């Protein structure tokens, strides 16, 4: 969770505002001030501006711009903290103490987060801000933060236990109802009495009793109401899910090894996906949903708090449903050309790019004719899980989930940032080269990418932003 790539001020970490822990964290959260100069590059050498905007973050957004000019307003609006501007030290000194301060800053961040999350009433806005600059790996902070950000856990701690048990029992019940093997089902409902009678007397030889089968409850039944028929309808879905699960993150032992733990993980994920498919017959299962589930399940089951890790499956199911509720329309083929569908989102991406860098946009759209649907389809539907390595995915998802305007909004920004970051290569490439580049996105410093994403000017002509403007007066 590096706050800055290279230029770390040792002082920053030691600066103390004992009365306001929030601001210590905001210390690591530097980006606001960089809009000056409007460059989408990383930091200019030796110079950085930082501002503390604990509550100002939200209002900064609402004004629709990220320019530092709002600083003064923040003081009046947020009323919590005065803005502070600090000039950086020249590189050399900074670099020497860089790694130490990184560690200190990371520790600070962790303890801040722990403090935050141990409050009775969690300040979601603050959490969003903290999370967007990265959550610590390991421990249980990320799992908790994600659950809060996705709305699975309510903001007040007292309600956590109840919510969790409610959801977990609900899940178990759903599983029992929908994922049951038909033969188990018939066993449970089956003629209990005659069973016992017959087996009381093991020695009876003779013709076995025949019982009438009602309700079309036999395996070859073609009736819609039959448990068996419904079961077989989903075998195709099940096969698809199995196949995809085998291919999830083949480089990670957690998912793809032959060990019993790994198989257990795959089983859990299979249950989640199958349950989702059964509960949403309109979409059922689409290839790729396993990739969206993978980071969630990973984070929740590597939660160091035993209690939570044991319930990773129901928790991941609930959060998966929440996460997908935004983008579920992207998976539905019929909605492709509708305002909610994937094509409309892709054109929003185009518009966003146009609003931020018309030259690049023109080059892609017209000169090289690289349409977003050739590369961004997978970026958007799978929430960037296929473009980066696992660790980066978790970091990016920290930002995605903590955006107060929603995952999709941030997703578009990150996609746009991805384009901007390889701008020079794109400008010098033709259709083939660009497509190749974008479909196998090169390794990049994630923090830099996310910074660029933060700085992106939102597309003012888009519906969402304007509706937000209206709401906030």
């Amino acid at each position, binding site marked *: 969770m590096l706050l800055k790539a290279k230029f770390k001020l040792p002082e920053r970490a030691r600066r103390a505002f004992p009365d306001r822990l929030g601001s210590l964290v905001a210390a690591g959260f530097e980006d606001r001030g960089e809009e000056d100069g409007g460059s989408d590059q990383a930091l200019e050498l030796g110079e950085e501006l930082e501002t503390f905007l604990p509550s100002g973050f939200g209002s900064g957004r609402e004004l629709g711009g990220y320019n530092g000019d709002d600083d003064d307003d923040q003081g009046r609006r947020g009323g919590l903290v005065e803005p502070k501007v600090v000039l950086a030290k020249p590189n050399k000194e900074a670099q020497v103490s860089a790694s130490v301060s990184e560690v200190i800053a990371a520790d600070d961040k962790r303890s801040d987060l722990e403090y935050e999350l141990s409050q009775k009433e969690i300040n979601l806005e603050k959490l969003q801000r903290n999370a967007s600059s990265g959550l610590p790996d390991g421990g249980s902070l990320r799992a908790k933060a994600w659950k809060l950000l996705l709305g699975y856990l309510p903001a007040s701690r007292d309600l956590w236990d109840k919510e969790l048990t409610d959801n977990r029992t609900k899940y178990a019940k759903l599983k029992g109802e929908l994922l049951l093997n038909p033969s188990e089902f018939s066993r449970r409902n089956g003629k209990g009495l005659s069973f016992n009678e017959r087996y009381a007397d093991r020695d009876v030889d003779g013709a076995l009793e025949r019982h009438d089968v009602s309700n079309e409850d*036999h395996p070859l039944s073609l009736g819609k109401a039959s448990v068996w028929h419904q079961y077989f309808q989903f075998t195709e879905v099940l096969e698809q899910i199995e196949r995809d699960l085998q291919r999830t993150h083949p480089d990670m032992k957690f998912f793809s090894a032959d060990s019993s733990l790994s198989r257990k993980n795959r089983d859990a994920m299979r249950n989640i996906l199958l349950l989702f498919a059964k509960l949403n017959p309109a979409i059922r299962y689409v290839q790729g949903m396993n990739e969206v589930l993978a980071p969630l399940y990973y984070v929740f089951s590597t939660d160091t708090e035993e209690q939570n890790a044991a319930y990773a499956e129901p928790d991941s199911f609930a959060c998966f449903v929440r996460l997908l509720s935004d983008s579920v329309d992207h998976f539905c083929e019929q909605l492709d050309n509708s305002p909610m569908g994937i094509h409309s989102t892709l054109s929003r991406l185009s518009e966003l790019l146009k609003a931020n860098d018309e030259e690049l946009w023109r080059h892609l759209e017209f000169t090289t004719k690289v349409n977003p649907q050739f590369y961004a389809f997978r970026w958007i539907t799978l929430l960037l899980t296929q473009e980066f390595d696992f660790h980066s995915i978790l970091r990016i998802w920290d930002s995605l989930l903590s955006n107060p305007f929603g995952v999709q909004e941030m997703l578009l920004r990150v996609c746009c940032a991805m384009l901007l970051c390889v701008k020079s290569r794109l400008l010098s490439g033709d259709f083939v080269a660009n497509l190749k580049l974008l479909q196998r996105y090169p390794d990049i410093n994630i923090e830099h990418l996310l910074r660029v994403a933060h700085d992106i000017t939102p597309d003012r002509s888009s519906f969402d932003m304007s509706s937000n403007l209206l709401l906030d007066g």
Partner: protein
Amino acid sequence: MVLVLAIGDLHIPHRAPDLPAKFKSMLVPGKIQHIICTGNLCIKEVHDYLKSLCPSLHITRGEYDEDARYPETKTLTIGQFKLGLCHGHQVVPWGDLDSLAMLQRQLDVDILVSGHTHQFKAYKHEAGVVINPGSATGAYSSITYDVNPSFVLMDIDSLRVVVYVYELIDGEVKVDKIDFKKTATATTHSAH
């Protein structure tokens, strides 16, 4: 949950042209894991048809089968159950339960599936269970002309078997089921 289809004595093309349409509409690929066939298909086309329903096909030789390579008896293990397969014309008197029980003890199986009589039977004796799936086409037998088409589908689930009997009576498919369990100790061990 393993679905095993027990079927046999079709006598196609000599005594019957094809399976009844209602049976054919129910037998679709993808649901059944194993097929055990008592024999008397009689021709290769029927063999291919059964193979298309399920790749795992076990078959024993009936006296009218044109393919002489099928074995006389076969045993296989599915789940916790040992199944034995034999056409039944070799066991004399035909259809006699005691003689079949002897065969079952010889093969040392929990469930013996045999045919030839073209009559459905499911019988339990101390050595295990004998199932006769009857004739799936309703072909006449050496014993009687009055034959209802029938076949059997077994749902084997660890120690429990549910046997679904499909019979075509007066043009309608009638389904019955039979439950039995195997105790953890061998079924040959009677409770003393």
